[in-house]
């Protein structure tokens, strides 16, 4: 930050202004916002100028872009069906395309699809763009799409979205540029589902993923799992102009401070997902800034309703009251979080129920609830791990609040290795970490439906299940929202999942890197940044 004319103005606030502008705030709205925050009109103008410049600068062509994510392993893959780490998403996004994509406002746009139509939300017709070619020169046809989507249904492939893809009972090519998808039941969200990273389109018959033959803006030049990848611009890209960058190098530095240091020393242009505690360091150096996205990622405390002590009436309610959300937001996330109300739909979503207020921190109420449940004074084990972001810190805060009312929470820190298979969904009280999903339907079917594969608290409600099906087939937004609103209230009050805050993702970058915008699918522009960013000379 070189421009320090406003005291206490950090690039976090810059990001907030940019976010507000994207959400459609007018200049007057923003200036009013500044006045409320004690920023003078003149200074406010400067900030606005900077924010609009960031949004409207002209792209520069060329350059070699180096970026570092945080997760790498030898399991790195170029197979979109198996992608599970953020590094995989970034790589896949640069070499493949999806049928649709979500822009920064959460609206569905067409990418490889030219149009997606349905009359009953059950049978969908997808027209493909013509003239799209794969890196090897082959033209995109309906057969490629059918092949790509069918892979998710093949259990031997091990697709990460098998459970979502299962609703597609028939996928067939009608003509060379038309695909018809029949769903098991009506689902108005199909275009959004197809914008998920796993549903990228590969060429028919591809089985070897040591390199990638996609339609994307970049071609693979080097791919070494767990080490690095280098992509070069695809000159035959179907979108006009193509990528701005000549080449794009991506690798992972798992150590947080090492990642930040690599950025500050000029070795990389972008350090993805840095810890809130590193922000002060990045801001203290000139030539670097931050890109913040709040997209619905959260770490939650799961109390299973079918095991003690979660099965005792009042216990879950008590813990929800005992979570000091403001302190978690301030201390654990350093302000880079939005307070949540124990349900998984984030404020970014159009379906967010704004009426549902977060529970206030109320130790006295918690104490009386625990007393009623006969649990006060007992030692309650809570499983936490580095694997679930910030869970150890949250557990420590809960423990401390508990100590003040005579409730003993016994934190059991367990290894990150094997956490997801050994403790998550298993231990009576444990932490989970859920990545953003584009629709309420996906979140609820994945996490709260009676038969949900990840029913974290074993929440079972017939009413909830039927509302889920009803909303899925409802094409009218307002009616859908009413249903989802009520479902959010149900989850918040009845389920054993305490969701204290939505964590923001902060990417630190060199100021030379331009064009990076927030995206509801996650940091680094929903992992698709490579195609859109450019380097200023």
């Amino acid at each position, binding site marked *: 930050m070189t421009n320090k004319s406003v005291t206490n103005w950090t690039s976090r606030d810059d990001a907030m202004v940019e976010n507000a502008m994207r959400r459609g705030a007018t200049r007057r709205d923003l200036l009013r916002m500044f006045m409320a925050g004690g920023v003078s009109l003149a200074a406010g103008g400067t900030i606005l100028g900077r924010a609009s410049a960031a949004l409207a600068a002209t792209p520069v062509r060329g350059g070699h872009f180096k970026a570092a994510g945080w997760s790498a392993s030898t399991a790195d893959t170029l197979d979109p069906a198996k992608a599970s780490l953020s590094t995989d998403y970034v790589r896949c996004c640069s070499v493949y395309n999806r049928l649709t994509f979500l822009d920064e406002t959460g609206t569905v746009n067409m990418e490889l699809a030219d149009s997606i139509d349905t009359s009953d939300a059950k049978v969908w017709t997808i027209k493909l763009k013509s003239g799209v070619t794969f890196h090897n020169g082959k033209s995109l046809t309906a057969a490629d799409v059918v092949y790509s989507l069918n892979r998710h249904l093949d259990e031997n492939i091990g697709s990460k979205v098998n459970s979502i893809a299962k609703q597609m009972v028939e996928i067939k090519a009608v003509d060379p540029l038309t695909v018809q998808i029949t769903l098991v039941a009506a689902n108005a969200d199909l275009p959004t589902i197809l914008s998920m990273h796993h549903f990228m389109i590969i060429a028919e018959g591809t089985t070897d993923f040591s390199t990638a033959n996609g339609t994307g803006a970049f071609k693979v030049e080097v791919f070494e799992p767990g080490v690095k990848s280098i992509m070069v611009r695809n000159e035959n890209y179907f979108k006009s102009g193509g990528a701005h960058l000549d080449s794009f190098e991506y690798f992972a530095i798992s150590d*947080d*401070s090492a990642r930040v240091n690599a950025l500050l020393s000029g070795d990389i242009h972008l350090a993805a997902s840095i*810890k809130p*505690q*590193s922000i*002060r*360091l990045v801001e203290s150096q000139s030539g670097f800034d931050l890109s913040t996205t709040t997209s619905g990622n959260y770490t939650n405390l799961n109390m299973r309703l079918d095991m003690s002590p979660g099965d005792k009436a009042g216990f879950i309610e008590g813990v929800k009251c005992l979570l000091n959300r403001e*302190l978690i937001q*301030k*201390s*654990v996330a*350093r302000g880079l979080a939005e307070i949540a109300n124990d349900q998984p739909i984030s404020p970014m979503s159009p379906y967010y129920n704004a009426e549902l207020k977060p529970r206030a921190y109320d130790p006295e109420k918690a104490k009386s609830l625990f007393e009623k449940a006969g649990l006060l004074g007992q030692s309650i084990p809570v499983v*936490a*791990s*580095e694997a679930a972001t910030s869970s*150890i*810190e949250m*557990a*420590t*805060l809960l*423990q*401390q609040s508990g*100590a003040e009312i005579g409730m003993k929470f*016994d*934190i*059991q*820190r*367990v*290894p990150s*290795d*094997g956490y997801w298979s050994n403790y998550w969904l298993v231990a009576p009280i444990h932490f989970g970490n859920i990545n953003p999903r584009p629709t309420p339907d996906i979140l609820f079917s994945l996490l709260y439906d009676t038969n949900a594969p990840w029913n974290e608290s074993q929440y079972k409600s017939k009413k909830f299940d039927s509302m889920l099906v009803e909303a899925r087939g409802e094409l009218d937004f307002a009616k859908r929202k009413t249903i989802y609103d009520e479902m959010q209230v149900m989850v918040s009050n009845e389920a054993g999942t305490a969701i204290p805050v939505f964590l923001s993702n902060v990417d630190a970058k060199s100021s030379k890197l331009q064009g990076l915008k927030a995206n509801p699918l996650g940091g680094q522009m929903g992992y698709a940044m490579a195609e859109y960013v450019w380097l200023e000379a």
Partner: protein
Amino acid sequence: MAPMFSKGFLPTPRHFGYHMNTVGICAAAMVCFWAVVAVIGPMLSPYPPGEIVDFDYYGPMSSTLWMGSDYLGRDIFSRILMGARYTVGISLAAVCLACFSGVVLGMTAAVVGGWLDTGLSRLLDALNSIPSKLFGLVMVAAIGSSIPVLIVLLGVIYTPGAFRFARALAVNINTMDYVTVARARGERTGYLIAQEILPNITGPVLADLGLRFVFIVLLLSGLSFLGLGVQPPNADWGSLVRENIGGLPFGAPAVLMPCLAIASLTISVNLLIDNLPVKIRDRSE
């Protein structure tokens, strides 16, 4: 030239008693200080170790927070007092375990020789070559996580090193004439080990113990990460450094103070060993 060595070879009367020099006394005082802190430290701490007392992070030293605040805004002074118990206690227990078993086995192997020697050496080599992270994970999986498990694990990890070192020393001593004479006298293995070998390798073994202590103090933080032993909100000093490493660019006391604590403990343990009264350290002189 000669006077340089006369100190060692021609003991002056002072060296017959348990005399210790100033450095040794200072080091001993420091070690005692930390031992006392380990016992009564938690009673002295101004705040509970898990409580967030500062809304700022990596806060500076102040009259209320003597050593500043950590990455969550917790009081570092209280956390160091609490961590002393784990760092001093666990490391000391583990290093004693490792050195005792390593040295005893090493001397036995050297004196007895033959198949016992070969067998023990191979077994411990095999043990040593398993990466400690893998080993730690397997231990947690097999018997769960607790402080005694952590101590045994650290002990087991460092036993082969102590064994190899002690054996290498003992093998050399074992070829000495006086050992051969003792053996010819028909002394039993226990006697040979305790009376002939041990006194002659005490110096290097103690020096080795001092270093091993340092390694264990540091390895502790790595194993805590695997979820072994020390559970939040408590933490050993190494973990305190690790969790606050982000404060290094700001010179935050949150990262420097635990480092100083580790250094003061490990350096004084080593200085104490180096300056032990000659009579204890080196009975051969």
